[in-house]
């Protein structure tokens, strides 16, 4: 039984629709899920604002406003109803959190426009997109503006002067690796990097909150981070450093767990995580970019239909082929 609004009449009418069983009702809705994710993202967002000050606030606001405005305009063009379900806010927020704090605001806006208009709506909107919109927007910016996308400033809060330096990932590992000091800084987030990727601890807290609330499944992040750590260890790298630095935490908890672009099946989630972990380490160590999480998840997004196909659970009672 469902209630439907009749838009043709001025008065809102409720129609009864008869459908077959089971008639399950749940307090879950797209909106509720989205707002819980936004709530969890507030932790790393707060850390980003604390460490990078006004830069962070402006980049986040620009990115979110551009994403929501694009969503509204595209829905208008497609003659589809605009629903404020929070998915555009998440896309804008996630995109902002993966950007360097110094990025010119118009570039952040272009990233949001690309993420919503091309990566999401051109494929049919929420639920139909193949690639994670925020990551597609980030990849677009990375390819378009390589210079501005790799300026990393040391965190200085709201202080006016900022010091530019290399991202921890692009520094030589020998120089800073295996140093307990650096682990602490990486955990807290007091280190140069993207807006919301620096504080591993708060990202972990947000991720665990979502797992406890059953918004996301634990399998993907565990497989993703586990595969990254294991492969780093096998290849003779500092596994703790590899796990805590870069965009791995935000990617594993908030991007690789996207409902739309990653597998639905339990086995599929583990396969997705392991694949993304292997690709991340491969790109970090042997690729042309210091960070591989973004491209790793996008590549695994492309493999998602294949993973789902081979990990379909067999219905009870049906024999093996």
């Amino acid at each position, binding site marked *: 039984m469902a209630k439907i609004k009749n838009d043709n009449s001025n008065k809102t009418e409720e129609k009864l629709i008869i459908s077959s069983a089971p008639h399950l009702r749940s307090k879950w809705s797209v909106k509720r899920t989205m707002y819980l994710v936004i709530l969890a993202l507030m932790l790393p967002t707060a850390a980003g604002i604390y460490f990078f000050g006004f830069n962070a606030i402006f980049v986040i606001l620009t990115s979110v406003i551009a994403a929501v405005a694009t969503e509204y305009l595209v829905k208008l*063009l497609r003659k589809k109803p605009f629903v404020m379900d929070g998915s555009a806010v998440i896309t804008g927020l996630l995109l902002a959190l993966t950007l360097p704090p110094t990025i010119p605001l118009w570039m952040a806006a272009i990233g949001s426009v690309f993420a919503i208009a091309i990566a999401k709506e*051109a494929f049919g909107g929420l639920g139909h997109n193949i690639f994670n919109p925020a990551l597609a927007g980030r990849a677009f910016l990375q*390819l378009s*503006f390589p210079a501005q996308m790799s300026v990393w400033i040391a965190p200085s809060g709201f202080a006016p002067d900022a010091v530019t330096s290399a991202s921890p990932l692009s520094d030589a590992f020998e120089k800073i690796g295996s140093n307990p000091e650096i682990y602490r800084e990486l955990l807290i987030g007091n280190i140069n990097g993207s807006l919301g990727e620096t504080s591993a601890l708060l990202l972990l807290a947000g991720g665990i909150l979502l797992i406890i609330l059953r918004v996301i499944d634990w399998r993907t992040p565990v497989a993703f981070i586990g595969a990254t750590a294991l492969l780093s260890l096998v290849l003779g790298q500092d596994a703790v450093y590899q796990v805590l630095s870069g965009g791995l935490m935000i990617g594993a908890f908030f991007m690789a767990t996207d409902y739309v672009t990653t597998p639905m099946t339990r086995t599929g989630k583990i396969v997705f995580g392991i694949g993304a972990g292997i690709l991340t380490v491969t790109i970090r160590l042997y690729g042309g970019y210091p960070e591989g999480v973004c491209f790793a998840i996008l590549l695994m997004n492309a493999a998602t239909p294949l993973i789902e196909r081979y990990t379909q659970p067999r219905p009870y009672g049906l024999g093996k082929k």
Partner: protein
Amino acid sequence: MSGFSKEFKKGIVISNPVFVLALSLCPVLAVTDTLDKALGMSGAFALVIIASNLIISLMRKMIPDVVRIPVFVIIIATFVSIVEMLFQAYIPAIYSALGIYLSLLAVNCLILGRAEAFASRNKVSDSLADALGMSVGFCLALILISFFRELLGKGGITVFGNELFTLPVLAENPISVFGMSMGAFLVMGLLIAFFKQIGVIKDV
């Protein structure tokens, strides 16, 4: 000459080789990063398709059916060689910018397609009109795509060394994705979507 104008017009909008038939995408996507290269490619394409359509239509009763494709390729390749030498002699800058894609016109699916589907079955005047229409349609499509790609990917428009105009912010920070092959797909897809939206291209 209603037949002539009908055959001429169809190549421009109704069956535009790029936006509707979606043929010959390899050169379209590869050479449209600047307006110069797109114009050079359009010129070469027009010369080859007009000449080969004309010859093939003239010889259509002489060509044995079983070997028609090799014969078409030989005729087309002849004109491609001529055009290549002309470009190398008179506009060497464009010749080197176009690189392999000029020679690849010899196996271009659009030119071969028009030879097989049209010129070998229709009279000379219609074949000529078909080639002219396809050339105009191809040229317009390439100019449109390359205009947006150069504007966004380079931040301004430069035609044969003359700077027409530059955009204020983009000139320093061009969106370089539009200069890459990904940008070619993006611009072409968005243009097709736009033409469908305003009703120029109809769903088949």
